[in-house]
């Protein structure tokens, strides 16, 4: 069923691919503390919504595009106060559309203006307001922007890694003092950019605007089956650093950052992501598993961990034979001197050394020749299923 879902999803999506996309977004500000945090504390936000009457949430709506789309992003400012912009973080758009007030344009209250760009390299990006950015970002004016390849299948980029499911996690912090009416509702003087801000001492540590038990939310907690390849899209818009700790059995592979593939993928159980960075990580467990991914929040001045949030991971059951494209693959002989044979034909074969360097690739084959490799251990990726092999 899951496979069928993805096929149907992409068949539907294909109709909208690589064309002119118009997105409407509103910038708003709460008139009272109405956003409820995990411990029932209310706070005021500035933020983005997709409808005029919609409540502000953090992060703002995720903007999804396909590679090559020509996009018109319309911003209507309904904030009753400060001007706003949309900075398209990482998209390398031209100066006019970069969303930096004194270098392009800002959108005043009750104005509507458009940003034009072409969706670039597939990957995970951000958008945020760049007016008094330290305050407006903390206030909640940020969201994810995702560009997918224009190929109609679940792959990270054209010719990249296949995956079955994906999760996008955007980390940030929230300091209640910055959300007091006297701070967030700052006087906006177009003749000066200077604004006085409080010290930064965050009270809440967020993943997709949620913390603590809220992270069991079905859109955040990982709930998949064994052998599924999971793509994590990770972005940090906070003012602290993050370190992710992945359980060893998830076989984390770090494959790209800031919208570009890494020259060599990195196998690691931890990953640090500093403010403004994005990473994409593949997870795949061959076993059933119940665990957590820990996210540390690091004060960048003292390099101390100030908080840790936990995201639950439940790997349960296996794809049934009819659903599982990653049926059990036997490799023989292993160890081998020459050819490694597979029990079924593999669409994509990738062979890596233990440092993550890609050594060989092959497509549509039921064997690969490793005669020329040095003696030792290697990792082989067979349509997303990773196994260890040994060259004698």
């Amino acid at each position, binding site marked *: 069923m899951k496979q069928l879902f993805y096929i149907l999803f992409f068949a539907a999506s294909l109709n909208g691919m690589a064309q002119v996309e118009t997105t409407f977004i509103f910038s708003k500000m709460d008139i009272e503390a109405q956003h409820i945090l995990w411990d029932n504390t209310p706070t005021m936000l500035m933020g983005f919504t997709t409808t005029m009457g919609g409540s502000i949430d953090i992060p703002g709506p995720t903007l999804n595009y396909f590679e090559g789309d020509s996009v018109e992003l319309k911003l209507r400012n309904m904030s009753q106060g400060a001007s706003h912009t949309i900075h398209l973080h990482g998209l390398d758009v031209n*100066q006019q559309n*970069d969303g930096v007030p004194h270098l392009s344009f800002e959108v005043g209250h009750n104005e509507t203006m458009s940003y034009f760009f072409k969706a670039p390299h597939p990957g995970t990006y951000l958008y945020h307001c760049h007016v008094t950015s*330290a305050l407006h970002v903390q206030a909640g004016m940020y969201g994810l922007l995702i560009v997918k390849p224009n190929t109609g299948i679940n792959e990270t980029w054209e010719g990249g890694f296949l995956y079955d499911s994906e999760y996008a996690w955007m980390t940030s912090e929230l300091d209640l003092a910055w959300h007091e009416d006297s701070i967030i509702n700052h006087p906006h003087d177009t003749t000066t950019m200077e604004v006085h801000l409080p010290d930064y001492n965050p009270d809440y540590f967020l993943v997709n605007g949620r913390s603590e038990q809220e992270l069991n939310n079905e859109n955040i907690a990982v709930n998949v089956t064994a052998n599924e390849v999971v793509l994590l899209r990770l972005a940090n818009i906070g003012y602290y650093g993050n370190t992710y700790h992945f359980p060893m059995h998830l076989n984390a592979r770090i494959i790209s950052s800031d919208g570009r593939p890494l*020259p060599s993928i990195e196998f690691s159980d931890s990953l640090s992501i500093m403010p403004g960075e*994005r990473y994409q990580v593949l997870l795949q467990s061959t076993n059933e598993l119940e665990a957590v991914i820990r996210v540390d929040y690091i004060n*960048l001045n003292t390099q101390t961990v100030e908080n840790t949030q936990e995201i639950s991971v439940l790997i349960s059951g296996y794809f049934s034979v009819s659903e599982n494209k990653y049926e059990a693959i036997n490799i023989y002989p292993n160890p081998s001197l020459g050819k490694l044979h597979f029990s079924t034909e593999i669409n994509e074969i990738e062979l890596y050394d233990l440092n993550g360097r890609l050594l060989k690739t092959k497509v549509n084959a039921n064997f690969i020749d490793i005669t020329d490799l040095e003696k030792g251990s290697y990792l082989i990726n067979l349509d997303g299923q990773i196994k260890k092999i040994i060259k004698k």
Partner: protein
Amino acid sequence: MTRAPLLIIVSIIGISNIFAATLEQSLYIISDSIQTVDSITVPYLSYNQTDSYTKDSPIINVNSGDTLKLWIYNHDSIGHGFTIKNLSDNYTIPAGDSVYLEQVFVEEGLYIYHDKEEYPKNTYLGLAGMIVVNEVNDHNFYWNIKEHNAEWNFNLTEGLTVDWENYDPKYFTINGNSNPHINADTLARITGTVGDTIYLNIANTGLSIHSMHFHGYHAEIIFSSLHPTHQGRIKDTFPVYPMETLRLKIVPHQAGEFPIHDHNLVAITGNNIYPNGMFTTILITP
């Protein structure tokens, strides 16, 4: 005609020996002051090329194979030191005294020289600069990035203690300047034309992690002292850890003026005033 290829090969093989040189440099440790973006004068230290004080410790350029002969004079009233991180021994220099050292630079890279006596005190107070090994073209820019807490500078120079474990800087600088003054520094403000190959040499001589974000362009990591395996990564945001260096290559594909700034947006402030921190712009002409 037939000998030409042989001559070329000989020249290439011998290139490092032909150009290896011995360079001489003097550095003077002087205690004086730095002015914050809001015009507060605070105590500061620097290495200087002459016995006249400037707030910027000099950038020293060498080529791989070169020998650097260094005389370091301590003109301060207290003892200091000198070391090249990950490269040289540590030298202590009593007040009014001097040391002489020679250092051969074998590998290309970007190194921090600093005073690690009573670390991090003297480095924090300004005694840190960079050595660039193998500049490869004319389009090089240099960022010595760090942070400051003015009250701590006064306390430290008066012999008082500070709580390093609760470091809380208020000013954020590139080459000692904050926005809007960074763009007036021709070593820091990146300029060029579309298609140029531009190198940015960054040394974080502070105590905080800085996460530098480029608008408009991605850049390639050419050298990373902390993460050598990150060489070749193409990104728009670059964490620079304390006492680590990074060299980036930028080939601008479009003209324009775009910000580059710390994406810890608190570091764009100066004494809590936005946008008086680590914020500059890159200016690329068609």
